[in-house]
């Protein structure tokens, strides 16, 4: 699969082929601009490959019709470096919003949201606003929002990029816990500590090509 951005002199991802099994925990690592973030965007159908296919959950999404994308995205949870929480909503409301806009009733939200907030370790802080929470706590809200719909895949694009090492490790424990429920976790990072500690599959990308794919890898 190849992705070239318009106006780019070389492809962001050049003839990359990778397959991730259900339930895996995979790191994509590499320097900035190596193309690892493009992987997340491709899996979300935010961008399309120029050549080749992207198959997620058994569906070829690279050729998916526009109107099918929303329902496809419901099977994927997403976490980002900048959390992307709504500042005028509480932790509870942020998570409930994700349910409500896909048509779930308030009753469902009342049942599910406290559960998932408890799971990510935010029990008792449901009614805090994002600015009243620490960075780690905000990222937990984001993880709760990504996971509340029980997605098959959790995509994490540098989820620890804005966090200190200790907080980062807590977030990683949380992702690990989510992975143990059977959710596939795909994480893009350049945080070597975390990769070394987790000892999971590591795929290293450089200049748009895969240079390493190791089952229990370290940052190297």
């Amino acid at each position: 699969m190849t992705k070239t951005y318009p106006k780019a002199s070389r492809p962001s991802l050049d003839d990359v082929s990778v397959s991730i099994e259900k339930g895996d925990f995979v790191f994509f690592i590499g320097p900035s601009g190596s193309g690892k973030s493009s992987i997340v965007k491709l899996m979300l159908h935010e961008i399309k490959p120029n050549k080749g296919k992207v198959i997620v959950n058994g569906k070829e999404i690279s050729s998916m019709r526009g109107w099918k994308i929303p329902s496809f995205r419901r099977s994927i949870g997403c976490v980002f470096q900048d959390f992307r929480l709504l500042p005028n909503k509480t932790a509870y409301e942020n998570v409930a919003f994700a349910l409500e806009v896909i048509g779930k009733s308030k009753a469902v939200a009342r049942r599910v949201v406290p559960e998932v907030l408890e799971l990510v370790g935010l029990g008792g802080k449901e009614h805090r606003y994002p600015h009243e929470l620490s960075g780690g706590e905000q990222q937990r809200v984001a993880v709760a929002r990504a996971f509340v719909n029980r997605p098959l895949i959790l995509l994490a694009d540098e989820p620890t990029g804005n966090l200190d090492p200790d907080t980062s490790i807590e977030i990683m424990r949380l992702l690990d816990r989510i992975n143990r429920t059977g959710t596939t976790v795909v994480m893009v990072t350049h945080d070597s500590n975390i990769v070394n500690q987790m000892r999971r599959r590591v795929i290293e990308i450089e200049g748009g090509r895969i240079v390493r794919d190791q089952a229990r890898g370290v940052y190297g």
Partner: protein
Amino acid sequence: MRAKYVLLEMLVGLWRNVTMTIAMIITMIVSLSMLGASLLMYMQVDEMKGHYYEQVEVSIYLEKSIDDAQRSDIKSKLDSDPLVKDVLWETKEMAYENFKEQFRDAPDLVNAIGADELPESFRVALKNPQEFDKINAAYAGLPGVDTVVDQQKLLQKIFDILGSVQNLSLVVAGFMGLAALLLVANTIQVAAYSKRREVAVMKLVGASNWFIQAPFVLEAVFAALLGSILAWVMLVVGKIVLIDGKLAALTDLLLPVSWGNVNLMLPILAGIGSVVSAVTAWVTLRFYIRV
């Protein structure tokens, strides 16, 4: 719950950006009322054409020196003419009576004309009022005929004036409509920008496109509905104050504008306004909120 959410978001969006909303609604009012006025005028001219063409006649004025043989020749030719529906012979006396009746408010004028001075004529109603030329060709040269006058030509001047007023208001409606559309597009962009975080999250968690776009599209539709109702109120006020008030004397000649037609404008304006602004909003969002 979803309908409530969408409606609430729509109102919040309109209120957050209230100056723009007002500008949008005002341009819509002007544009739609101009459109409504020109539609009304169009219907009016149509109705008047139907009304007057029924009555419009061709007058064949006869020379003063005409003799009885010539007159009865013309009469029998008219009676057997397939283009002619009806013929009335208006004598000098009848012409004078009609003249006195028509200008009873101007006695000076009536007194200035002697009973003998008005020409006698045949009043000819045509089966098809458009066929004046044929009648003119057939009768203008006959002995005893002075002139053949098509009264339709007189009306045509009035219709021409109405037509140009109508075109003018259509042009104004067009320009204001364009301004209204640009304002709709701009308002929707601002609304979408002010909710970009929500929109980003909604896209991320897989909210359907219609759900993301509906509040914005409804904002435009709501403004258009409000604008069209107010535009209709303008038309009603225009009818009461202008047509039935200041210009009432003119409407004796021009036929009054009926309430039925004015009321018909409400659904027409509301329909055109809301469809056009919904499409504008939707197209704007296509460019602005990419999946």
